[in-house]
């Protein structure tokens, strides 16, 4: 990357973020919006600093439940995606169930999970998993189902069996789809764990926000939002880098 490209790819987003905060700050002062409605970024930053140790602990909990749930979603999603993409019959059989399942608001499931597992870490992990596995399954299955018959013929003409075709062609072919879905899924996983924490937990950023809002400490609520957004961006970036490393062939750079 040249210096100019580097400036554009890192400088531009930073600039946009700065602009957002400036407009926000300006609007709050200009329209005299009370702090318990919409706190200015500077106020949120102060609150973030004031509660830093508590926030750090809650953020660690949220990151933990998110990543565990997401990890399970990746494993399960890959497996189910491969199976469903591999077999047209299974695809037909299972797809409506998956759609139906994905249509259920996950916040409606949390109370059930609480009855089953109690409050805390377990329902958060499960919610993160439930909300994030769907895009992985659909993407991986699509990648496999749209495998070019010509590429399969190349392998078949060498006498390769189904499993070998899967290993040599199907698996690499699904990787770009898989990584694209990971970037979506990891941000969704945050949504899942935070939803669960707001409903049924005494740990995590979701809990922190609910507790803060019940005290009308809106700056702290916003601090929580910022923390989640930051974590989301960081994980997204991590998977984007992984994607670039592992599937650069698909992007022709």
């Amino acid at each position: 990357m040249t210096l100019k490209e580097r400036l554009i790819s890192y400088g531009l987003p930073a600039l946009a973020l700065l602009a957002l905060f400036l407009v926000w700050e300006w609007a709050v002062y200009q329209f005299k919006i009370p702090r318990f409605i919409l706190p200015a970024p500077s106020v949120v930053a102060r609150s973030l600093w004031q509660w830093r140790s508590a926030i750090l602990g809650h953020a660690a909990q949220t990151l933990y439940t998110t990543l565990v749930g997401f990890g399970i979603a990746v494993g399960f999603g890959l497996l189910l995606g491969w199976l469903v993409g591999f077999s047209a019959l299974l695809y037909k059989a299972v797809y409506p169930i998956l759609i139906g399942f994905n249509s259920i608001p996950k916040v409606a499931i949390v109370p059930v999970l609480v009855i089953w597992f109690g409050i805390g870490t377990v329902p958060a992990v499960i919610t993160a998993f439930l909300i994030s596995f769907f895009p992985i399954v659909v993407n991986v299955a699509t990648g496999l189902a749209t495998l070019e018959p010509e590429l399969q013929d190349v392998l078949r003409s060498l006498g390769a069996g189904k499993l070998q075709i899967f290993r040599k062609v199907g698996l690499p072919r699904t990787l770009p789809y898989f990584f694209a879905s990971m970037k979506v899924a990891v941000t969704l996983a945050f949504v899942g764990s935070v939803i669960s924490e707001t409903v049924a937990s005494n740990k995590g950023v979701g809990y922190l926000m609910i507790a803060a809002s019940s005290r009308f400490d809106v700056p702290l609520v916003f601090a929580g939002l910022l923390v989640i957004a930051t974590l989301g961006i960081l994980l997204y970036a991590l998977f984007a880098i992984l994607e670039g490393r592992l599937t650069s062939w698909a992007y022709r750079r």
Partner: protein
Amino acid sequence: METETSTTTQAAVEFRGVGLTYRARDGSTLALDGVDLAIRPGEFVAIVGPSGCGKTTFLKLTSGLLLPTQGEVRVQGKPVRGPLKIVGMAFQNPTLLPWRTTLENVLLPLEIVQPHRRLYRRNRGAYREKALGLLQSVGLEGFVRRYPWQLSGGMQQRASLCRALIHEPDILLLDEPFGALDAFTREELWLVLQKLCLERKCTTILVTHDLREAIFLADTVHVMSKRPGRLVARREVTFPRPRGLEACFTPQFLDLYQGIRGLIGEVREAT
């Protein structure tokens, strides 16, 4: 099995009354009908015919990717019952795997076909050398680490030829491999292919709609009729090898060309 096949010199590929019907939801199509053909070991056979006449079907039957609905296909005396590993195939599209470099693409058959698959780990160095040698012989030595999309169409097709040959198949099947290339690149690759075939002496079946290509490369040219495909004529090409591109302009070549051209014309008119 009967023993008559071993009494005479065994044909490399033999079609006996082969027919193939594709079944689709909207009815069935007869793609090939009553094809009889014997190909000697080491022979270079070209099959020409109008597009959609069943040439690709013919190759798929030879390789075992398709099984005949009538008659029998025998390769080296044995009836074909499924995909064969003694064939190498190059397709109209280069069909290189986009996530593999040129070298890795050429090595692919060795990861699949036995006994190479078993020996792959142990012989990796030797196999790489072999692939590099093959790539060098088609002029791709500077592009072994490139990905397919970084190569031109002609280069991709060269790599595809190398992939078809790396496991030293007894039979090379070429499905219009130069159809998508410009005339100059195509002629250049004829020479490359001729060189490779002379070196390896493998039985080769080339399917093409380019009559010049067929005559230039083949020992025997078969003409296939419109669907359902039948072999309607056979011409021997006896020009000495290696043939140079100037052979295309000798009177004998042009006579043969005109003769077969006329036949194809008749085939196209017939309904």
